């Protein structure tokens, strides 16, 4: 299912490709913000950036990214599938936007932690709720 650009190359319209490619529009790599303590201070995953790995964390320094808001012009759609991998040597914090929670790893919380070389798959199921599967 690839990147949107691959599907466009097969004849899909760009809007359809962006929504159906498993990796979305990319890029598949991004940086977290060192010391990020909130949604506002974290680097944002884009609304069709469905597959991303973050590798710039350093040992003993927590760093953060944020899931997109849900809905509106630049937000995720209900049911979108986001996959986030931590390829660094530090724990990655993943924040959700204000008033939103994610049900994952036995908690319903506004931030979840992703350990080194583990991956989270998550989906917005309402404008205020994500659900997630965190890999072992």
């Amino acid at each position, binding site marked *: *299912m*690839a*990147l949107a650009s*691959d*599907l466009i190359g*097969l*004849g*899909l319209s760009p809007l359809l490709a962006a929504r*159906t*490619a*498993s*990796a*979305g529009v*990319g890029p*598949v*790599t991004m940086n977290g913000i060192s010391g990020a303590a909130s949604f506002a201070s974290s680097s944002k995953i884009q609304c069709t950036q469905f*597959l991303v*790995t973050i590798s710039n964390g350093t040992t003993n320094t927590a760093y953060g990214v944020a899931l997109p808001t849900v809905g509106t012009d630049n937000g995720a759609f209900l049911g979108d599938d986001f*996959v986030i*991998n*931590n*390829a660094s040597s530090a724990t990655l914090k993943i924040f959700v936007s204000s008033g939103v929670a994610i049900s994952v790893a036995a908690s319903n919380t506004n931030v979840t932690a992703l*350990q*080194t*070389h*583990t*991956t*989270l*798959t998550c989906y917005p199921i309402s404008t205020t709720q994500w659900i997630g*599967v*965190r*890999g*072992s």
Partner: protein
Amino acid sequence: MLATDLTGLGVNPLQAYRTANAGTGPLTISSSGSAFASANRIDGAQYLVSCSDSDGTKALSLPPIGGDGGALIGDCFTINNQGTTTFTIFCSTSVVISVSGSNTSSTTLGIHTSLTCYPITQTQWIGIKGA
């Protein structure tokens, strides 16, 4: 669904095998070998497979990334173990997978567990392994 389901709905074959979540199939695969070169290889668009003949020695390998028969960046592969023993899944030469706390050239899959994985560069997969 499989690509054949989409072609039956009028989607062209190239689009169908890249957009069907199960790809081209087949949905079952046998294990063999004990390294990338000798293990039974998952095809570049065989996105959903289950293996039930593991015997503690045989293995599977992920497709190479890129090239005519390889996986594309962002493709989603799900592999299940229905067998009675753990089997190993190998990456191609010089390729590693970030999964289960390690960045490694191979990973194991326990009985009745599944791994979903994605190539994110030509030398790197990421994976989420079920508990």
